[in-house]
């Protein structure tokens, strides 16, 4: 089975080479038969990669320790779920997942791209094939998961315990679906540059791929953040860790792309800029892959360090980023630029959005890579952490958030800022009220935090305002308003939901940052600690034996100040037997949107145990907001004009790709 997997992987590499070459040659020489090769080959390459991946999963499930990768990262006593997810909990396996998803997207283009012009489709598939071939070569030559051990050990050395978790089972596939999803946008952009033609129809074809990748990336980042929050036991939701930034940069660029593609589709403007963003989004994904997989960064995620891999990925990065940007530099001139437009208009607002998002991407980029560059040049070691990002990134987000509710209320071509402002009176009033209430009635709220609460309210009410106005709620009869509401285009709901979701996330972040309470105390059984209106009683400590670990489990009773019992909170210190590695399992009690978070420390001098307790108000909104954003993206994806078959309504001249010569 393992050899079948290995063989299938080699076969997939060979197929990718064919996929990169034949459709491309076909497209240049306008030979339909060569171009038609691309589709079936892309689908077969995906099937082979899937077979290869399943073979590795099977080796993990059977605990086949004659395979080096399985021996290094698995253990026979590990629960079945973590045997399966352990497949991608290591460098080699996760790279296999990466190429699996890449070929998956290639196959999707081949299967669902029927109404694409044949030349464009052939070029897109060829570029996907080229990316695939490069990464297959990387996997086969530096990170082969199918390497056998001559003498099979009896027991494996287990998966890193912090990775033995459901969150980490879902996080990498989601993240990769996002990262790699941008490869399709990249391929479309390269194809457009090769052909030298691009129009509104191109934007309409690219948009669903951008949206899909963005939805997955949003989910992947949120999942990773929640995992770090509960698993690492530090209670933080975002550390501005270089690896987090690596996934955040493509998200920011992707969000910008999502918005600029709307302008291109509706107004035939911002063409060159949209192309550049499409190239950047995937380039940043590749950079992220490089940063994580080469181990150049010190971070909680850098589990693999091997210089040859780093150099190889760096070469791939240089080839794809350098190649695509050079192509852009040479060919962008040949694209027909779109017209200018009024700054106060829907498209003007979207440009503003792009300006802020790309600048924010740049600040994150600088903060992430500056320490590396400085160390390489001067040898000085510095750390750029949260204070840097909070200042620069925060300064960019505040005006963006203030501007956000205006965007959807402005008309295309020529908007009326005063009219939009009038419509936002309710939102402004709500924001002011939220800020004042927070400042006056909630303990511990500073003026700065009050502004944050006001801003979150502004986003939330602003997002709803657009829907209310469009449906005419309050101004027409309820039945008419209801009918209008149901008849609104899905993309309008998508925008409102996504913006509302951002508002929720902002509210969660402001609330936790401003109002979180923390107590660190040494406790013995029977001791209590008060925190934000709750009383936590340390009940007892018990040793427990799990499948592949032993733990000291501490039981706490949570109650309100009035004495109402709210159940038990269990927190523990685990030691994983195979690696003799300790971990902290946080105990979390969710009350509404808020959480009480209990983390165990070391034994204290007085014989008790150090316990760290947090009350995190509205913390779950941070991730719920991301879910709402994903729902918004999905709504937009379901919009009629993006669905398959809709291009039948497109303008005749949109049938691009017909040989112009």
């Amino acid at each position: 089975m393992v050899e079948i997997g290995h063989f299938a992987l080699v076969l997939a590499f060979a197929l990718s080479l064919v996929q990169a070459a034949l459709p491309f040659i076909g497209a240049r020489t306008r030979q339909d038969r060569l171009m038609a090769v691309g589709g079936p080959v892309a689908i077969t390459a995906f099937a082979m990669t899937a077979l290869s991946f399943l073979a590795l999963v099977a080796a993990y499930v059977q605990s086949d320790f004659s395979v080096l990768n399985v021996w290094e990262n698995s253990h026979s006593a590990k629960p079945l779920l973590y045997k399966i997810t352990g497949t991608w909990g290591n460098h080699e396996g996760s790279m296999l997942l990466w190429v699996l998803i890449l070929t998956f997207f290639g196959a999707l283009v081949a299967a669902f791209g029927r109404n694409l012009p044949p030349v464009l489709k052939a070029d897109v598939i060829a570029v996907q094939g080229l990316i695939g071939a490069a990464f297959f070569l990387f996997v086969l030559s530096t990170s082969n998961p199918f390497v056998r051990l001559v003498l099979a050990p009896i027991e494996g050395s287990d998966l890193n315990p912090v990775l033995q978790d459901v969150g980490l089972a879902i996080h990498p596939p989601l993240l990769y679906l996002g990262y790699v999803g941008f490869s399709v946008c990249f391929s479309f952009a390269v194809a457009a540059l090769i052909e030298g033609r691009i129009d509104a129809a191109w934007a309409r074809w690219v948009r669903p791929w951008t949206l899909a990748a963005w939805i997955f990336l949003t989910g992947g980042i949120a999942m990773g953040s929640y995992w770090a929050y509960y698993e690492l036991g530090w209670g933080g939701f975002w550390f501005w860790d270089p690896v987090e930034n690596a996934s955040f940069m493509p998200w920011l660029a992707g969000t910008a792309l999502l918005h600029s593609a709307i302008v291109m589709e509706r107004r035939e403007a911002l063409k060159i800029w949209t192309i550049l963003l499409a190239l950047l989004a995937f380039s940043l994904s590749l950079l992220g892959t490089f940063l994580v997989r080469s181990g150049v960064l010190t971070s909680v995620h850098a589990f693999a360090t091997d210089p040859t891999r780093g150099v190889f990925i760096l070469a791939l990065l240089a080839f794809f980023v350098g190649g695509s940007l050079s192509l852009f530099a040479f060919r962008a001139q040949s694209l027909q630029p779109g017209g200018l437009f009024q700054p106060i208009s829907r498209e003007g607002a979207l440009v503003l959005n792009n300006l802020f998002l790309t600048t924010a991407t740049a600040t994150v980029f600088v903060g992430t890579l500056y320490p590396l560059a400085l160390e390489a040049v001067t040898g000085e070691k510095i750390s750029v952490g949260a204070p840097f990002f909070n200042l620069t990134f925060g300064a960019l987000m505040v005006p963006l958030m203030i501007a956000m509710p205006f965007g959807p209320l402005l008309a295309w071509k020529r908007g009326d800022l005063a009219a939009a402002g009038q419509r936002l009176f309710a939102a402004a009033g709500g924001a002011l009220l939220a800020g004042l209430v927070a400042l006056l009635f909630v303990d511990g709220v500073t003026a700065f935090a009050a502004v944050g609460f006001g801003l979150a309210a502004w986003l939330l009410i602003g997002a709803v305002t657009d829907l209310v106005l469009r449906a005419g709620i309050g101004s027409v009869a309820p039945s008419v308003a209801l009918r209008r509401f149901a008849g609104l285009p899905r993309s309008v709901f998508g925008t409102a939901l996504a913006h509302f979701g951002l508002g929720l996330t902002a509210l969660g972040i402001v609330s936790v940052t401003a109002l979180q309470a923390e107590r660190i105390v040494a406790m013995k059984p029977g001791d209590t600690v008060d925190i934000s209106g709750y009383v936590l009683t340390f009940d007892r400590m018990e040793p427990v034996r799990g499948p592949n670990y032993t733990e000291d489990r501490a039981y706490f009773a949570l109650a309100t100040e009035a004495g109402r019992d709210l159940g038990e909170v269990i927190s523990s210190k685990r030691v994983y037997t195979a690696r003799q590695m300790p971990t902290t399992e946080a105990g979390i009690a969710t009350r509404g949107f808020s959480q009480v978070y209990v983390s165990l420390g070391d034994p204290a001098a007085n014989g008790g145990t150090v316990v760290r307790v947090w009350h995190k108000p509205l913390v779950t909104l941070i991730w719920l907001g991301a879910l709402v954003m994903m729902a918004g993206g999905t709504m937009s994806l379901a919009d009629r004009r993006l669905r398959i078959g809709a291009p039948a309504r497109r303008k005749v001249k949109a049938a691009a790709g017909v040989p112009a010569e």
Partner: protein
Amino acid sequence: MTRKQKRLAVIAGALVFLGGATTLTFYALGQRTSYFYMPSDLSAKPVEPGQRIRLGGLVEKGSIQRGQGTEVAFAVTDQEKTIKVVYNGLLPDLFREEQGVITEGAFDPAGNFVADSVLAKHDETYMPKEVADSLKEKGVWQEKDGG
């Protein structure tokens, strides 16, 4: 405004914006970053009390003293010089004697290093990269520490 003037206005606006963002970024890089030191670097290049730095090294054997409650004191060494660190909080899971750590904080006027965060990585072979590099330079690196 003519088309050309409008274009110029947009470009000027964008440039002002980008200039502002760049200034802010460089200001933040100057103010909000902290430098990494090993104990012997500090005797060569002392830092003012109150200035935030990151101090890395090995936790000296036998130096960990647990105080009342959550206070902890330990010494960070690079086998040449040793610096006493005081910390109030939860130590990471992998904090042990003779393991690499990075602490972040500032010196108090008495010359103790008051850390507000202590980092050790979640991997049993982990040695913070900065610490490992510096120890290699000094020749006290041992492969078994986790290379």
